[in-house]
């Protein structure tokens, strides 16, 4: 097992290198003037274009720029992000916890809802509940996130005033940024509890409801589908048939025998789902003005902030490799039939 894990961890630097090469190779398509658009925002600054190009070495070939970046990273410096107006490492450190918080809550909801719906769907296959749940989950995957998110915002914030956008209300935000508040984890709901500030906990939770609802609806479909088909497969296996033949109640069959085995592929998928969630938050964060890594990644990409995009991609690819690894390890732990080669 350890050998397997170590081998997979070796993949990390390789993937990181590959991702960075991919991004810098895209630079070939950019002229120095296009890259200078990161620094020039107004027609008044157009005259400074050649100077900007020279100042930031934008006219050097892509491989030279890549080598410069690589040596910089080797010294532990991920570079400066013009769009975030702070070092890339700081931006990631700052934005990531917000996305993580959103991701964790969404993940919990997706798991709960997805597994429950998928199981019920499989058990009551081809009946009304099955069709309804399949239709609901599929329709969730059919509507673009931003449309759904805006609708939710309009109804639940605009009309009812219950769940606002952003991450915190004004007063809570000021309190959290003041020196008296200790950011232990970066996840405001947890930090608020650790700091003993219940009102901030509720405030943060209120702001999470709509983004989580948006993400959950969208991604539950996948989980329902997998759970359902996996459950179906398990319910047909010999040992389940035997259990039924023995006269065990449906409930026992499902809960004790079928579900555990059906969950095996679900666990694998859940790992991937989590990482998929992290990348899927991009649009959601934009719609709700949620200060997470997705929103920053898109802004950086739109404005061609190369160090930011590369830093962002590195973190992400690292997460994905780790996520896959965790899923595989979990899979092996849960299913004794798997022997990791």
């Amino acid at each position: 097992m350890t050998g397997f894990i170590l081998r997979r961890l070796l993949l990390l630097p390789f993937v990181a290198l590959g991702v960075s090469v991919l991004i810098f190779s895209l630079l070939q398509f950019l002229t120095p003037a296009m890259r200078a658009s990161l620094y020039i925002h107004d027609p008044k600054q157009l005259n400074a274009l050649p100077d900007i190009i020279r100042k930031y070495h934008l006219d050097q070939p892509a491989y030279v720029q890549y080598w410069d970046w690589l040596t910089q990273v080797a010294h532990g410096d991920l570079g400066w992000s013009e769009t975030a107006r702070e070092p890339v490492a700081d931006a990631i450190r700052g934005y990531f916890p917000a996305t993580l918080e959103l991701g964790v809550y969404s993940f919990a909801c997706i798991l709960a809802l997805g597994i429950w719906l998928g199981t019920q769907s499989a058990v009551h296959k081809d009946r009304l509940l099955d069709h309804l749940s399949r239709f609901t989950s599929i329709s969730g995957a059919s509507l673009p996130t931003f449309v759904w998110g805006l609708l939710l915002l309009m109804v639940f914030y605009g009309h009812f005033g219950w769940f606002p956008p952003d991450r915190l209300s004004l007063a809570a935000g000021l309190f959290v940024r003041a020196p008296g508040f200790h950011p232990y984890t970066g996840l405001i709901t947890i930090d608020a509890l650790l700091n003993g500030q219940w009102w901030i906990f509720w405030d943060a939770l209120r702001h999470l409801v709509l983004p989580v609802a948006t993400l959950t609806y969208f991604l539950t479909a996948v989980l329902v589908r997998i759970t359902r088909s996996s459950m179906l497969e398990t319910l047909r296996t010999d040992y389940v048939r035997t259990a039924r033949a023995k006269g065990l109640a449906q409930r026992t069959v499902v809960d004790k025998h079928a579900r555990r085995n059906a969950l095996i592929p679900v666990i694998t998928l859940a790992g991937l789902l989590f990482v998929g969630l992290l990348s899927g938050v991009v649009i959601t964060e934009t719609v709700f003005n949620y200060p997470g890594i997705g929103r920053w990644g898109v802004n950086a990409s739109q404005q061609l902030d190369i160090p930011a995009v590369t830093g962002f991609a590195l973190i992400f690819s690292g997460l994905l490799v780790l996520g896959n690894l965790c899923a595989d390890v979990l899979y092996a732990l849960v299913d004794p039939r798997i022997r990791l080669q």
Partner: protein
Amino acid sequence: MTAVRSSTPAISLSRTPSPGRTVETGWHRTLRRFRRNPLSVLGALIVAFFVVVALLAPFLAHPTERNPFMIPHSGYASDPHPPGPGHPFGTTEEQFDLYYGVIWGTRTAFVVALSVVATAVAIALVLGSVSGYYGGPLDELVMRVTDIFLAFPGLILAVVIVAVLGQSVRNAVIAIAVVEWPTYTRLLRGEFLRVRDMEYVQAARALGSGDLHIIARHVIPNTIYPMLILASLNMGGIVITFAALSFLGLGAPIGYAGWGQLISLSHNWIVGTAGDPFTFWYTLIVPGTAIFLFVLGWNLLGDAFRDVFDPRLQGSR
């Protein structure tokens, strides 16, 4: 030459009929299974509807601009207008006709989705077959490259590519294809691996058939079904990604007939006016419904294909 029994347990298309029963070819069984599920039928109907709309677009909505994909506009005023004479679905911001946009947007959706799928499949056929069939270091290399592409968050990669290449439909297609090709390649490679060691392939090799011939005649046809499932499930996702790109200002140009474009034109108006949040409901609901139904149809269809063609569920019904 005795017929080599097609030993693909997956799709028994040509099963010899058991004596005493009426001859029921594989296709009939597939179709019957398909028809039994109302959701599958619904999906097929929806997709068929959109195909018809896309084909008949020039008749349903007469083009007036040089480029028929550019939506005609009557005037330039900012505020959208509700459905009325001349504009059956209303107009968007700056008076683009929603009806025209939705009709020709169907064509755009198909063009974009099919282009992406075609490109991804083309790449997958080359890389996946080579990788799966020959194996070894070549396989390793291709797999590592797909690893790298898959490690990249999809939307961000698409955004970066369009930001670099410039905003246009063509570049959006390229960007989405770059995001999608690894999945197709991996799938095809997996299928190739599975099929490569089958008896009939080994037999063909033993008979001296060339590699390319084997790939083309034996391997590829049997890997079509998983690809079909993937592609049909992917069609909706591609259109949503394209809409997301348009929403971020990186998809089709302004005034182009695309559902995502129409929705991005609507996103400032969904809060309505001060008194009534639903004043401009049509700007969102009309293109939103189109995109929803399109993706829904393909999702249902893809789901149905999976149920019907999925090897693991064969024989256990």
